[in-house]
């Protein structure tokens, strides 16, 4: 048996969850205990009075049941004697455009719900357009709540006509319309409601809809997932065949390197086969040693993919942090991951009207046409050619969130994209480029309290995590920038002012700056804090008692101060004002410097 994957699109009150719940129930795919749970839930959260609320069969999260809305994509499974079905049930709110795109990315067909009383709405257009954008080309139009308009045939006909025009405008190729009442179950799995409708039920349409075949006739494309090397004499390349067929003896090109080879073997699930086709997970071997690794694509030698590092794409923005041109992301396409930058937002698209608008950034759920530039050239297909090799995601380098989904329109020849959109290089952009949150971490405490030791360990830890850092240390600054300053109170204040300003510049450059300074005066520490944005300045009090510092005295300074050889030595003959409420307090008498450094790093990880 074959299977159809479809997505359901509709808004809050269109009755989408009810329709799916009904479909599961009426096609006898809901079990007795699920029905019993439904009866319990209906009594508790139901919106249908005494009757069963079929929406509760599918709304799974607590918040969804309580609020009576669908928040996230839910996947449902059912089958009839004719076919298996996988349903992506997607929320319809504008703020869930990203979820709809997610559901549409794997769908063969979309059920678009329209409330018969309301007709085609902006959201109907939005849903249909997003489906078309993600490559769903056939729609079942379910005109729902027909019972509430007295099964008026004219209402149905008008909506069907209006939708046909919309479908053509957004690029939906095939539309079938059915008048239904999800609540009553009419025309879902059985005919009912109207005697004037004699067409197939919704389920019959689903059973008969053509399934867009995986492209097995196109040129072969195998994105390599990983290299298998069980022993010296075997080197296999594992991956899911994205397009075409591969057979022993076929000539292939390794892309992007362009090296040629002949397939020595093709296996599926550990068994050698004569040939494999699109959709199968395979392992192939080559007749000669070639440098092939994850992310490469093995292509039919006669028709390789174009290789490019610049292309045009539609992106659906999915992250809370907006898309900013110039910011770096990880791009994943096929099995390859590469550093990428959006160089230009050509326009934003109003998802309701599809009008083009100028935009400096894209916010969550925005869709736009953009130009991307990659750190290295890669083999690229357009999305129209291949969902697998033309669909990509962008990953935020700092949070690792999936920030966007994109579909490749076409690649750009070198030089076409040299003009970079004017964008402001600011602190946020510099920080994003380094994939970090810039910070000033100020270690204060007595001489020999352990400030520099800990600061250096913190820096080492941060660098190991790939952060960009700098340590400003009392000694290194006094030897250069502040060579002209002494140890009087006025000079100490000026010393701190300059260091704070330098730290501020470094934070502006996107760095994590670790300042290791005694900074004895509370007022100056406050002055330093005031230079930074809230949360950017972290005061770390290295709280080591004077006796301990004096006992350590690594440079013999306390001894000299006690002997009267150093005037104005903090703690001996100059005051140290203890921080009242430091962000972090470290006790060096009970923990090792390594443990204390970890404490500071953990504090930095908090945002």
């Amino acid at each position, binding site marked *: 048996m*074959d*299977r159809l994957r479809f997505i359901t699109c509709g808004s809050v009150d269109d009755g989408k969850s009810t329709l799916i719940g009904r479909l599961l129930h009426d096609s006898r795919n809901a079990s*007795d*205990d*699920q029905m019993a*749970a439904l009866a319990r*839930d209906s009594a508790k959260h139901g919106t249908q009075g005494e009757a069963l609320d079929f929406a509760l069969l*599918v*709304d*799974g*999260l*607590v*918040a969804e*049941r309580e609020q009576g809305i669908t928040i*996230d994509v*839910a*996947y*449902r*499974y059912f089958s009839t004697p004719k076919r*298996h079905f*996988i349903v992506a049930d997607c929320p319809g709110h504008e703020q869930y455009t990203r*979820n709809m*795109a*997610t559901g549409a*990315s*794997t769908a063969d067909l979309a059920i678009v719900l329209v409330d018969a009383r309301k007709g085609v709405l902006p959201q109907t257009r939005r849903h249909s357009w997003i489906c078309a954008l993600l490559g769903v080309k056939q729609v079942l139009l379910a005109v729902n709540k027909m019972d509430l308009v007295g099964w008026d045939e004219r209402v149905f006909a008008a909506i069907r006509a209006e939708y046909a025009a919309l479908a053509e405008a957004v690029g939906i190729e095939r539309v079938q319309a059915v008048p239904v009442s999800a609540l009553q179950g009419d025309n879902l799995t059985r005919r009912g409601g109207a005697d004037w409708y004699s067409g197939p039920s919704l389920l019959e349409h689903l059973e008969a809809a053509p*399934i867009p*075949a*995986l492209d097995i006739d196109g040129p072969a494309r195998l994105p390599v*997932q*990983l290299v*298998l*090397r*069980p022993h010296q004499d*075997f080197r*296999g390349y*594992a991956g*899911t065949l994205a397009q075409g067929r591969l057979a022993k003896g076929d000539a292939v090109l390794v892309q992007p390197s362009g090296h040629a080879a002949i397939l020595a073997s093709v296996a599926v*699930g*550990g068994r050698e086969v004569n040939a494999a086709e699109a*959709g*199968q*997970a395979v*392992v192939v071997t080559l007749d000669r040693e070639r440098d092939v690794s*994850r992310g490469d694509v093995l292509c039919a030698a006669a028709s390789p993919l174009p290789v490019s590092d610049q292309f045009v794409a539609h992106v659906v923005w*999915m992250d809370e942090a907006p898309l900013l041109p110039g910011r770096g992301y*990880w791009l*994943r396409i096929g*099995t390859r991951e590469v550093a990428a930058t959006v160089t230009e937002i050509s326009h934003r698209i109003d998802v309701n009207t599809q009008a083009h608008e100028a935009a400096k950034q894209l916010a969550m759920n925005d869709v736009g046409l953009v130009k991307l530039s990659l750190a290295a050239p890669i083999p690229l297909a357009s999305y129209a050619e291949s969902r*697998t090799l033309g*669909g*990509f*995601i962008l*990953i935020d380098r700092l949070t*690792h*969130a*999936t920030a966007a*989904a994109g579909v490749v329109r076409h690649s750009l020849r070198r030089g076409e994209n040299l003009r970079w959109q004017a964008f402001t290089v600011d602190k946020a952009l510099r920080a994003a480029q380094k994939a970090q949150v810039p910070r000033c971490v100020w270690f204060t405490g007595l001489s020999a309290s352990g400030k520099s030791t800990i600061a250096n360990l913190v820096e080492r830890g941060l660098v190991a*995590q790939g952060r960009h850092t700098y340590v400003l240390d009392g000694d290194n600054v006094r030897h250069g920038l502040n060579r002209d300053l002494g140890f009087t109170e006025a000079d100490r204040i000026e010393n701190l002012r300059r260091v704070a300003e330098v730290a501020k510049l470094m934070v502006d450059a996107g760095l994590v700056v670790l300042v290791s300074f005694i900074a004895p005066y509370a007022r100056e520490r406050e002055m330093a804090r005031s230079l930074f944005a809230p949360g950017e300045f972290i005061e770390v009090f290295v709280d080591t008692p004077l006796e301990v510092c004096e006992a350590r005295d690594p440079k013999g300074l306390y001894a000299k101060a006690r002997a009267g050889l150093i005037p104005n030595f903090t703690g001996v003959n100059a005051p140290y004002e203890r921080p009242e409420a430091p962000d972090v307090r470290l006790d060096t008498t009970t923990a090792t410097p390594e443990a204390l450094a970890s404490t500071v790093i953990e504090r930095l*990880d908090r945002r």
Partner: protein
Amino acid sequence: MPLSHLDRLEAEALHVLREVAAQFRKPVLLYSIGKDSTTLLHLLIKAFAPAKPPIPLLHIDSTFEFAETYRFRDAVPAKYGVELRVHINEDGVRDGIDPFKHGVSVHTEVMRTQGLKQALAAGGYDCAIGGARRDEEKSRAKERIFSFRNAALRWEPKAQRPELWNQYNGRIHPGESVRAFPLSNWTEMDVWRYIEREGIALPPLYFAADRPVVERDGVLLMRDDARMALREGEREMMRRVRFRTLGCWPFTGGVESEADSVGKIIAELENVTTSERQGRVIDHAPGDSMEKKKQEGYF
């Protein structure tokens, strides 16, 4: 001939398993000995053949598995050529956590959920593969194939990463982890049809046989050893039963059945009107109990 539904499910699962191997430093496969995780084991071998799977198996032993389950488990490493690690929550053993004394919830929380957390932390695993399916339970229907866990191992249903095409984002920070579910899109029936097609061996408990059972609270329990004391009026009786899932025996009910082969089970399932988790006592708590458990770190 186009790929069948089962072929496509298999290909997707192999793809996911290979993504786990490619994207994570130290993945592990949670092996519960049940039909789903044994199917997963079969797929694991296929995904990396002819190489050995680069991913070890981990069993969180509740100490109340069926004796047959243990026998089956102990034969797995030699039969499949894989490494199997076993973890028992020794704190729970020391505290004498007992399902009969402390109840299902406490026992599951301590021996499974806490045990799992201990084992994942001790092993430093950054990805744990499980056999969960979306058709099992409502909150699972919304879970991703790569399901992100924060540093406290919690699942945040509202902060899930969008998952498009076959792109699975496994990028994490130190301390964070991912649960991967290659069987997400399979139904119970798909699993059985695949087991039949591939001839996958399962613990005999899945197949109907005359077994000594006790009826308690409407559930047929198999008294696997003497740790279960009979209540007044209860008596052991022979019934022809099989188990649709294999959990801890004190709260995994058997169903009366004549199905003693995979083919007969499939025939039986085609007419059945209860879902497979019905025999599990843990799921009968209030409607959102699984979502809560998952947030707390249950698989």
